[in-house]
């Protein structure tokens, strides 16, 4: 209930921002709604945007549930896509596997720095995002640049996800991933250990749980999910890499997960909400000239309103 109220409140606040452009808030809301769920075309756009958001949201949910601050979804998303395009010539499945592996490995850089040097993962994961962005810049301007060498982008990937109507099979994969994540967190011993560590690491340690191992696993799973998001986005939607490929999906995942209260199944609904917001914001930019940054703004507002409603209190 609180979640829905927060989402509605964020929409109201957003629509008021139309005043800054000298337009009526009602008009903005109308464009936002019609541009995201108003037609079959818009709805498909929303679902396509929800897929990466669902996966990065799950990535954040797993990490935060285990008490690990993985803010590195953006970087893991990027290296996932880079790995996917490199492995695409071995087929779609190899490409998807490569994206998960790359995301997990990229995240594990932060894990090892935490375990060996006690470097806080909240900072190392963010720094790794910036490094991944420049790595991507190098790839599309250097070794992976298209054969013509004209634009800073790669050639189309050698493989693509099968189409399902106007959508791609990644939609099913993402839903499958959220069910699997739910099962892992709530129906297995492993998940119990992860959640116990996140709930109270000291108590978990006393109960005989190897807390360091949980950290490694949570970061690995979280990184793999974000990497998979990048792989699916590449193989299902863009088919090429370019400099602004990630488009903030990693950071948006934080808002998606928090709105879902870190629950893997609720993340499906939450990702559709933010997918609609992003798609609607794109329409705003096209038809009304209102910056699509309203989507980022909306994510922040949702998180802050959720805090006000007291659903994300300090855990001390």
């Amino acid at each position, binding site marked *: 209930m609180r979640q829905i109220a927060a989402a509605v409140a964020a929409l109201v606040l957003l629509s008021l*921002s139309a005043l*800054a*452009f000298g337009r009526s808030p009602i008009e903005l809301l109308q464009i936002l709604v019609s541009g995201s769920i108003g037609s079959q075309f818009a709805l498909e756009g929303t679902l396509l945007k929800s897929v990466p958001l669902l996966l990065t949201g799950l990535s954040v949910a797993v990490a935060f549930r285990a008490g690990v*601050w993985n*803010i590195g979804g953006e970087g893991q998303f990027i290296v996932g896509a880079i790995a996917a395009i490199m492995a695409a010539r071995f087929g779609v499945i190899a490409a998807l596997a490569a994206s998960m592996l790359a995301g997990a490995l990229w995240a594990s850089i932060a894990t090892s*720095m935490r375990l*060996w*040097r*006690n*470097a*806080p993962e*909240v*900072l*190392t994961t*963010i*720094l*790794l995002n*910036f*490094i991944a962005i*420049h*790595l991507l*810049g*190098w790839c599309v*301007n*250097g070794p992976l640049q298209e054969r013509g060498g004209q634009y800073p982008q790669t050639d189309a990937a050698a493989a693509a996800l099968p189409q399902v109507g106007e959508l791609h099979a990644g939609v099913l994969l993402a839903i499958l991933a959220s069910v699997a994540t739910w099962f892992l967190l709530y129906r297995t011993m492993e998940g119990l250990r992860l959640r116990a560590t996140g709930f109270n690491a000291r108590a978990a340690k006393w109960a005989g749980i190897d807390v360091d191992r949980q950290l490694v696993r949570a970061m690995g799973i979280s990184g793999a999910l974000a990497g998979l998001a990048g792989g699916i986005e590449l193989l299902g939607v863009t088919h090429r890499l370019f400099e602004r490929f990630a488009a903030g999906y990693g*950071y948006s995942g*934080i*808002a998606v997960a*928090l709105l879902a209260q870190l629950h893997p199944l609720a993340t499906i609904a939450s990702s559709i909400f933010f997918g609609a917001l992003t798609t609607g914001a794109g329409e705003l930019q096209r038809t009304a000239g209102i*910056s699509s*940054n*309203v*989507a*980022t*703004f*909306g*994510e*922040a*507002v949702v*998180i*802050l309103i959720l*805090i*006000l409603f*007291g659903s*994300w*209190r*300090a*855990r*001390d």
Partner: protein
Amino acid sequence: MIDVILHALPIAIVASTPLLLAVEGEMVVQRAGIINLGIEGMMLTAAMTAVLAQHATESVLAGFAGGILGALLVAAIFGVFAIRYRADQIVTGTAINLLALGLTGFVYQAAGGALFAASAMSEAAQYVAVLLAWIAIPAALAVMLWMTRFGLRLRAAGENPEAVQHVHAYRWSALAIEALLAGAGGAFLALALSSGFAENMTAGRGFIALSIVIFGRWKVRGAIIGTALFGVAAGLQYTLQAMNIGLPFHLLLAVPYVVTLLILCGIAGRVRAPEALGR
């Protein structure tokens, strides 16, 4: 090698002045027990409001005032959630960064994608700002933190909040000091180092600042040494670029972040953070 470093030092010192201001601010706020991840958004907002204020008044000083005002506004939002409502500081900081990114991007586009500074900051004014940031402010902060009753209580709010009356007041003050410094840093970035505002122009400086605070062990001297070290190391990317040894430009852009990772990993031994940090 020494030659190269000596040559790079003055440039590094000017270029990392905004960073140093942010490090100083974050150090104060962490001493009071708050991790402000939102400093990135604070600087970004300040960079924009500084340019807007300078545009309106054609005065650099007013630009700085505008930057500080913008940072104070962001600090107020952060404080309401993280201090008043005791929300998780990392979640709040992340939300603040998204908020600042969205809002500044929004205004930037509304301004037609062009927010240039009205005029460049004079070299004399830049020197004054650099001297303030590297000498006067650190000295003042050291005196405040270690030689005044206010500083003692501010640190106590970060070590053992139960022992202090009016913990919130000290945390709010620390946050205001941070906004003052990070705001000035954002203004310096936009008005002196760049010729205006560009989307996401802080490029992670806030996060680098947080890393240096840890590296410097929450001490004024550590903040200065850490920032200078970072400045020289990050400046290597330009030296390497000029030497043209074939390292690709895009990979050189990642140098500052790699350096910061190394700095974070270089915290040998046990680091003692303020006891109540993050709570």
